[in-house]
C-alpha cells in the first residue's frame, strides 16, 4: 500500500476497471457536447436524449459487469477493495447498486424528456441531455468515493448541473425562480457541509474516510464536541440535499418550478445520490462512534416523517403534494441508517443497506410513473391542482389505474413495491427494538392515506370538471415510462424476491 503522499501512478486499465460507467457517461456527455458544437444551427438535435439513453444503458451494463468484478475480488480473498488512488475511489456493490439506480433513473427521466422537448421547443436539447449525464456522473462519484474532496466534487457536479436543469426553461419565470431557490439553499448547505468537513479534516488530518475513521475512533473522547459538530454540520448540509425536515422548504418550490422530468430527476436520482453520500460518509467515517450520534438521525427522521406527511395533507397542487410526499419518503429512507445506532452486529448494516436500496428502487418506479402520469394529466387540464385529476377514471382508465397503483405504493399499500419497501425498513426498527420508530413509520403512513387517497378520490369518486369525452392522448415515451413504473411497482410488490435475492447476494462493501 502506498503512503498517502506517495506517488501513485494510475494506469488506465485500473481506472477503466473501477470507473467504467462514469467514464462512459462523461465521454457520452462530451460527445453530445461536441456534436452540438459542430452541428449547424438548423440541424435537429432531437436525437440527443436517445443518444444519452444509449450511454446510460451502456453505463448500466458496465455497472452490472462491475458486480462480477467485486464478486471475483471477494472470491479471490485478497480482502482488499478494488480501489484507486489509495482508497480514494472504490468499487464495491454499494456503489454499484446506486449506480444502477442512477443510470436507470436518468434513463427514464430522459425518456420522459423526449415528450417534454416536443412541448417546450425553447429548451436546448443537447445541453439538457449532457447536463443530465454529467449530473448522473456526479451522483455516481458520490456513491463510490471514499474521499471527502471527491465526494464534495461529485456532490457539486450533481448540484450545479441540477441548478441549471431546474432553471432551464428560460421563458418560464417559475423555472428560474425554482433554480434560484435551489441554488441559494443548496450553496448554503454546501458551505455548511464543507464547514463540517473542515472540522473532520482538522481532527483526522486527512480527507480519506476509510483512514480517517480510525482516527475518529481514537480521538472521539478528546474531540467529542468538535466531531459531533462536524457530524451535524455535514448532516445538515446533506440533509438539505435530500430535504430532511426542517431543511426541506426549498423542495416544494423547486419541484413546482422545475420541468416535470427534472422534478422526477431531483426526486429520484438526486435524492438517492444524497442518501448514497450520507450512507457512505457516516457508515465509513463515523461507523466506530455511531452509537453516540445516531440519535440526531432518529430525531431528523421522525421529524421528517411527521412534518412531511402533515404538510402534504392540505396541499392541493399535485406537484407540491408529491414534493411533500418525497420529503416524507426521505424520512423513511433515513430510518435504516438511524436505527443502526442500536444495531449490534455487522448484519445490521447489511440489513440497512438492503432496506435503503430496496426502498429506493421501489421509490424510483413509483415516482417515475407518477410523474409521467402527472405530466400528461396536468398538461391536458392546463393546471397542476388536484382538480386536474377529477374523473380521470372515466377519461383515461389506464392512466387512472396506473396513478392509483403509484399512489397506493407511496402510501404503502400491500402488493405494491412501496409496501414491501416500508415493511423492510420497518423490520430494521423492530430488530433494533426501536418499536416506536417503526410505529411512527406506519402511523405517519396512515396519516398520509388522507392525501394519497385524496388523489384517488379525485380520480375515481368525483366527476370530471371537463368534458368526459376528451380522451387523453398519451405519448409513446410516457406510455413506456408509465408501463415500466407500473410493472416495476407491481412486480416488486408481488414478487419482491426478484430484488431481494439479488440484494441478499451482494458484497456491499466488498467484504
Amino acid at each position: 500500500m502506498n503512503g498517502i503522499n506517495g506517488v501513485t501512478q494510475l494506469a488506465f486499465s485500473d481506472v477503466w476497471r473501477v470507473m467504467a460507467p462514469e467514464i462512459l457517461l462523461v465521454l457520452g456527455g462530451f460527445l453530445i457536447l461536441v456534436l452540438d458544437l459542430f452541428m449547424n444551427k438548423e440541424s435537429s438535435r432531437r436525437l440527443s436524449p436517445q443518444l444519452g439513453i444509449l450511454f446510460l444503458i451502456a453505463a448500466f451494463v458496465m455497472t452490472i459487469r462491475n458486480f462480477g468484478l467485486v464478486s471475483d475480488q471477494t472470491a479471490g480473498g485478497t480482502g482488499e477493495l478494488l480501489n484507486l488512488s489509495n482508497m480514494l475511489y472504490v468499487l464495491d456493490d454499494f456503489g454499484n447498486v446506486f449506480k444502477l439506480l442512477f443510470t436507470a433513473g436518468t434513463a427514464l427521466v430522459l425518456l420522459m424528456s423526449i415528450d417534454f422537448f416536443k412541448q417546450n421547443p425553447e429548451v436546448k436539447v443537447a445541453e439538457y441531455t449532457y447536463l443530465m449525464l454529467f449530473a448522473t456522473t456526479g451522483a455516481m462519484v458520490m456513491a463510490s468515493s471514499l474521499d471527502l474532496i471527491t465526494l464534495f466534487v461529485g456532490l457539486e457536479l450533481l448540484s450545479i448541473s441540477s441548478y441549471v436543469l431546474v432553471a432551464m426553461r428560460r421563458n418560464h419565470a417559475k423555472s428560474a425562480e425554482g433554480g434560484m431557490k435551489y441554488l441559494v439553499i443548496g450553496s448554503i448547505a454546501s458551505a455548511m457541509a464543507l464547514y463540517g468537513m473542515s472540522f473532520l479534516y482538522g481532527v483526522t488530518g486527512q480527507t480519506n474516510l476509510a483512514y480517517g475513521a480510525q482516527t475518529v475512533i481514537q480521538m472521539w473522547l478528546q474531540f467529542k464536541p468538535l466531531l459531533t459538530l462536524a457530524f451535524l454540520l455535514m448532516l445538515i448540509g446533506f440533509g438539505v440535499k435530500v430535504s430532511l425536515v426542517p431543511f426541506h422548504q426549498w423542495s416544494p418550490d423547486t419541484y413546482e418550478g422545475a420541468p416535470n422530468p427534472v422534478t422526477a430527476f431531483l426526486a429520484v436520482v438526486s435524492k438517492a445520490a444524497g442518501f448514497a453520500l450520507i450512507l457512505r460518509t457516516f457508515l465509513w467515517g463515523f461507523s466506530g462512534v455511531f452509537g453516540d450520534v445516531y440519535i440526531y438521525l432518529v430525531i431528523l427522521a421522525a421529524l421528517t416523517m411527521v412534518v412531511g406527511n402533515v404538510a402534504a395533507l392540505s396541499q392541493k397542487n399535485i406537484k407540491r403534494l408529491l414534493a411533500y410526499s418525497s420529503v416524507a419518503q426521505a424520512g423513511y429512507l433515513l430510518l435504516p441508517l438511524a436505527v443502526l445506532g442500536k444495531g449490534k452486529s455487522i448484519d445490521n448494516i447489511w440489513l440497512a443497506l438492503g432496506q435503503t436500496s430496496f426502498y429506493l428502487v421501489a421509490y424510483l418506479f413509483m415516482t417515475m410513473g407518477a410523474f409521467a402520469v402527472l405530466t400528461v394529466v396536468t398538461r391536458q387540464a392546463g393546471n397542476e391542482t388536484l382538480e386536474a385529476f377529477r374523473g380521470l377514471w372515466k377519461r383515461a382508465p389506464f392512466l387512472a389505474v396506473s396513478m392509483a397503483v403509484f399512489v397506493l405504493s407511496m402510501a404503502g399499500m400491500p402488493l405494491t413495491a412501496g409496501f414491501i419497501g416500508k415493511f423492510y425498513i420497518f423490520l430494521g426498527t423492530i430488530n433494533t427494538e426501536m418499536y416506536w420508530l417503526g410505529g411512527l413509520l406506519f402511523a405517519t403512513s396512515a396519516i398520509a392515506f388522507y392525501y394519497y387517497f385524496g388523489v384517488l378520490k379525485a380520480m375515481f369518486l368525483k366527476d370530471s370538471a371537463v368534458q368526459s369525452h376528451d380522451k387523453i392522448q398519451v405519448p409513446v415515451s410516457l406510455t413506456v415510462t408509465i408501463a415500466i413504473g407500473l410493472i416495476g411497482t407491481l412486480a416488486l410488490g408481488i414478487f419482491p424476491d426478484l430484488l431481494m435475492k439479488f440484494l441478499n447476494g451482494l458484497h456491499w462493501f466488498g467484504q
Partner: protein
Amino acid sequence: MVQNAWLIPLFPLVAYLLLFVLGRRAQEGIVTAISVLAALAGFIVSLLILSDVHANGASAPYVFHWLTVGQNTLSMGFEVTPLNAMMLTVVTFISTLVLLFSKGYLHGDARYSVFYQYLNLFIFSMLGLVISPNLLQVYIFWELVGLCSFLLVGFWYFKPEAAAAAKKAFIVTRIGDVGLFIGIVLIYVATGTFEYSGVFEAFEAKKFAIDWITPDHFITLVAILMFIGAMGKSAQFPLHTWLPDAMEGPTPVSALIHAATMVAAGVYLVARAFPIFEASPDALTVIGIIGGITAIFAALIGLTQNDIKRVVAYSTVSQLGYMVMALGVSAYAASTFHLMTHAFFKALLFLAAGSVIHAIHHNQDIRFMGGLWKKLPLTGWTFLIGALALSGIPPFAGFWSKDEILLGALKSGNTTLFVLGLIAAFCTAFYIFRVFFMTFTGEFRGEKEVYEHAHESGSVMTIPLVLLSIMAIVAGLLNSPLTDHAFEHFIFGGGEEIGKVYDTEWWLAGLATVVALAGIGLSYLMYKSKSINPEALANGPLRPFYQLSLNKFYVDELYHVAIVKPVVWIGHILNFIDKWVVDGIVHLFGEGTYIGSLGLKYSQNGQVQTYGLVTLIGALLLIGAAMYAVGGVK
C-alpha cells in the same frame, strides 16, 4: 310412560310448525282443529304420565348431550316429577280449553292463524319449561314463554297501548330474568353443573368452587337472585307492574298465560328448586315478605280498578303473592296446591270476563256494564263460581288452598304475614264481587244497542267455561281432609315431606270463610243494595287511600321518574359525550392535524431567505441540543 314425556311439548311444537307452514291464510277451522288436537293429545299423555308417576314415583332425568365446554358437558332433556306431572296436566288442560275458547273469541281476526301459532309456541315453551331437568333449560324456556307473552300481548300491534304493554312485559320480566341468569350462572360456576340433582347435592354439601364468598352467603345470594327471576315472571312486587298492562292482549291470552301458566312459572321455579331456597332461611324470609307485600298490595289496588280484566289481573298478582308467601313460610305443598287451584279458577274468571267482553263488543270498563246476568246467564254462573273460588268460600277450590297458605303462615310464627293474608283475603272477596255485582246485576250502563245485541257465545266458548267451573269447584277437594290430603302425598312423591305440612285447623278455616263472606257482604252493600255509597266513600274521608289505590300506588309513575327517565337521560348524556367528547377528540386530532398542515403550508411563503432562516434555526436547535447533550470534554 314417563319416558315418553317428551311427546307432550312435541305436540304443540308440531302444531306450531304445521301452522307456520300453512301460513297466515289458513282456514280457521283447520287451525283450531290442529291446535286443539295437539293440546288434547298432550293432555291425554299428561294424564297417563300423571297416573304413572302416581303409581311409580318420579323418574330419573332423560338427557342428551347438547354442548361440550372443555371437559364439561351441557345437556338437555326432560324429567318427570310429581310436581311437573301436575303442572303438565294443568297446563295442557287449560291450554286445550283456551285454544277452544279462542276460536270464538278471535273469530274473524285477520291474523287468526298467527294467534294460534303464538299460542302453540307458548304451550310448547311452557311445557318445555316444566319438564326441564336442568336450570339452563329452564332458563331457555323461561325466556321463550316470556317471548310468547310479548308476542301475544302485542298481538294487536296497531294499538299503541298493546305495543307498549308488550314491550313493558318483556323488559320488566327481563329485569327479573337477569337475576335468574346471574343466579344460574353462579350456580354453574360454583358447582360445575346445571342439573337439578347435581346442584341440590352441592347445596346440601355446601361445597362450592367459589372463594369470594362464604357458602352460606353464597346460597342466600343465589337463592335471592333466582327469586328475582321468579319475581319478574310471577309479577311480584315491585316487578308486578307489567302484568296489569299485559291485559292489552286478547283475553284468552290473559287466561292462559297471565293467569294460569306462565305467571305461575316463578312459583314453579321456586318450588322446583326448593332445596336451594330451603338451605337459606334468610332467602326464605325475603320470599315470604315479598309474597305477603304483593298479596296485600295488589289486593288493595284491585279494590278500585274499573277495568274488568285489570281487576282480575290484580287479583292474579295478589294470588301469586299468596303462593310466594307460602313458599316463603315453607308451605311447599300449600303453595303448589294453590298454584293448581288458582290456575283453574283464574282461567275461568278470565275466560268468563272474556265472554262478557266479547258479548259487549270489547268494552272492558265495568262502569259501563251491568245487568248482564239476563243476557249471559251461563257466563254469569261460571263467573260467580270463579269468584267464589277466588274468595275462598267453601267448598270451592280456592278455599282449600288459601286456607292452607294462611295456616302455613300462622304456624310459621310469622303473624304479620298471616294478618296480611287475611286482609288480602277480605279485599279479594270484596273486589271480585264488586266486579260481579257491577257486571251482572243492576241496570246496563252502556249503550242500549250493545245491550240488545249481547248474547251468550257459542259452544266453543261456553264448554271451556263449564269445564273450568267444574274444576274450580272440585279441584280443592284434592287436598282437603276429605281426601286425606291426596295432593300432598302425591306431590311429595310418596317420599319425604318437602317444606312443612300442618294439620288442618278448622277454626282457621272458619275465620277465613267469615272474612271472605264479610268482603262479599260489604261488596253487596255497596254495589248491589247500594246501602253504602261508594262514591261518597271515595270522595270522603278515604279519598287519599282511594286515590292511592286507583292510581296503583303510583308505582308506574315512580318508576318512570326514578328509573326510566334517568336512564334515558344518561343515554342522552352519554350520546352527547360520544358525539362531542369521544368523537370530538378524534375530530380535534384530525382538525388539529389539518390546521397544523395549513400552518406548515402557509409557512412556505415563497421567500428563499425564510427557508434559509428556518434551515438555520433548525440547524441551530439541533446543534445546540447536541452540544448541550455532549456537554464538553471532561
